[in-house]
């Protein structure tokens, strides 16, 4: 492929669109970590469920794909509540390895259940804008990608308002600072944990719906985005929302540029190499708090 100005611009636009999906996933992972001090390695599987549910709702009920995302968001939030109550709550605060084991069990449960329900072949969500694109001189961008960027911005603004302006957000911030003090202030920490997990799951579902409209997906789609989202929040610092946004955009653009210049094989390997180097230099991430 010739590397010309239009291809680079197109790559940047693609990078921003993909980065937006990563941002949503990373923000969800981040808020769960911030409040619950829990790393949910099965977060990408919630994205996968979001994509499949959006597909089913738009296909079976004939609903507009973007409206279907809202429905799937609610369903995945409920699944998130169930997951938190039934599994993570029982191992929270104990041996960190147990949280990793439970996440892994959840990955196996969700992926295989999805494979049994929806089959092993890949699917793509048909949106009303499919096939249409904005044509500028020498480049064309599909409308779906442009809409995806705006959906992400709207979701993040709503999320920011929830965290900054509401009582629930205040309680979540208090819990994230110190849960025992939050408890003394009359906050029901267990309810906050449940809500936090539900919100994180809902963000993953939106990411899944957008992903399913832009790309085709199958039951294994969640694995790589989880890792990428994790890389993003490690770079941006665990618990920092701003870091996740900057990291997500940066990662999406770098990944697309790396694919353009070096070829697709190196995409994830380069991401991990970067991650490992950062962690060797700073074991708590670039913007993370200093350890002991």
């Amino acid at each position, binding site marked *: 492929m010739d590397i010309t100005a239009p291809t680079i611009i197109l790559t940047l636009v693609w990078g921003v669109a993909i980065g937006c999906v990563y941002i949503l996933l990373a923000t969800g992972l981040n808020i769960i970590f911030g409040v619950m001090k829990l790393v949910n390695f099965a977060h990408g599987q919630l994205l996968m469920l979001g994509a499949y549910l959006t597909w089913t709702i738009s296909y079976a009920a004939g609903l507009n794909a973007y409206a279907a995302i809202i429905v799937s968001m609610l369903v995945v939030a409920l699944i998130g509540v169930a997951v938190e109550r039934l599994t993570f709550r029982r191992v929270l605060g104990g041996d960190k390895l147990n949280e990793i084991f*439970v996440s892994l069990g959840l990955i196996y*449960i969700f992926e295989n259940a999805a494979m049994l329900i929806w089959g092993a072949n890949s699917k793509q969500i048909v949106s009303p804008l499919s096939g249409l694109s904005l044509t500028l001189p020498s480049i064309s961008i599909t409308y779906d990608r442009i809409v995806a960027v705006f959906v992400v911005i709207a979701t993040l603004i709503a999320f920011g308002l929830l965290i900054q302006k509401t009582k629930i957000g205040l309680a979540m911030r208090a819990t994230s600072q110190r849960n025992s003090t939050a408890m003394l202030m009359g906050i029901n920490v267990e309810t906050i944990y449940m809500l936090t997990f539900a919100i994180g799951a809902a963000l993953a579902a939106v990411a899944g719906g957008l992903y399913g409209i832009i790309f085709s997906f199958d039951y294994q789609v969640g694995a790589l985005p989880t890792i990428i989202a994790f890389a993003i929040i490690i770079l941006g610092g665990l618990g920092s929302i701003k870091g996740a946004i900057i990291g997500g955009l940066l990662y999406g653009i770098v990944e697309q540029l790396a694919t353009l210049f070096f070829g697709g094989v190196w995409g994830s*390997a380069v991401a991990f190499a970067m991650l490992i180097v950062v962690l060797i230099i700073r074991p708590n991430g670039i913007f993370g708090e200093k*350890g002991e």
Partner: protein
Amino acid sequence: MQIKQLLMPFLRSNGFKIMLAAFAILAILPILVNDNFFLYVFTLIFVFSIYASSWNLLANSGQGSLGHAAFLGIGGFASALIGGSMSSAIMASLEVTKMPIGIMSVLIQIVVILLGGLLSAGIGFLIGLACVRLKAWYLAMVTFGFSVIAGTLSSQLDTITNGINGFAPIALVPNGYPFYILVISFAVFSITAMSLIMKSRMGLAFRAIHGNETEAKMIGINTAKYKLIAFVISTFFAGIAGGLYAYFIRFIQNDIFSPANSFLPLIMTVIGGLGTVVGPIIGSIFLVSLQQSLALPGVVESLRSSLGAYFPGVSNVGPPIAFLIIGIILVLIVIFSPKGLAPLFSKFLKYLTSEEKGKEAKKK
């Protein structure tokens, strides 16, 4: 000195007797049963017992690796490639086209598998240097990332590894009973060595670090040093398992670096019993026999005719159902029985022996 102090009581202890007895029973078993499929499954179980035990040792020091497939693969590729070049050199000097099987080839087999383990441990040392300062989830991510990088490198260096299409290592020990004996010898020695390490002062340090790293540091344990040692020992045995696996399956491909292979020892160990010697073995028996029985043509066919209609999108319903159940078992075990199935197993043993004692007491 320390080794002698460790070894002498061990040679007199019950553990040594159990080890000898286990070896004898395992060696005789296939002669009694005399079935190829049985032998195949048993060999695989012991290869994975080594692999899962190596993961267990690392987790016992508080480090949960999600990328052990990297070391399985490094050991596998290294021993298959070194073995290949050694045997082609021998074949060229003898001017034959087929590697002669004999004491010589068995020795080469043992040496190349050990070399695979050593190379894996060498790389494990370098990765371990990066990992000792990391917290649980960062470590999980870095090890996972390393297995992805190892797979990518192996496909980029395809002219050396031939990993994309895969290749068959040149046979050095015939498959079947001879290879089974090789595997159980390696398994008995490796698992005994690892259990000795876990029972020694070093193992105590590992457990202290797992319990609470800051406290371990406070009582004067050099946590970074012990974590690194655990990493090197673990990756050495994972590499050995990789070499045995490649030579047993008679095929090695980049697939070996897949995340599924990284998760396997974790699932085996957690289901069997984290931090115990028998846990990884129980888990390996459970998982390998489940996977192998699901691959039997009769089982595949009956599952398809009974359940296939409910799941039209899946061609072979056995594996997804099995892995769904394994996922549920994993979660249930972590929540309700964090020590896995091993305590149940030892309770059962105690129950048996106490009953016998009870009978003896009654007779008296």
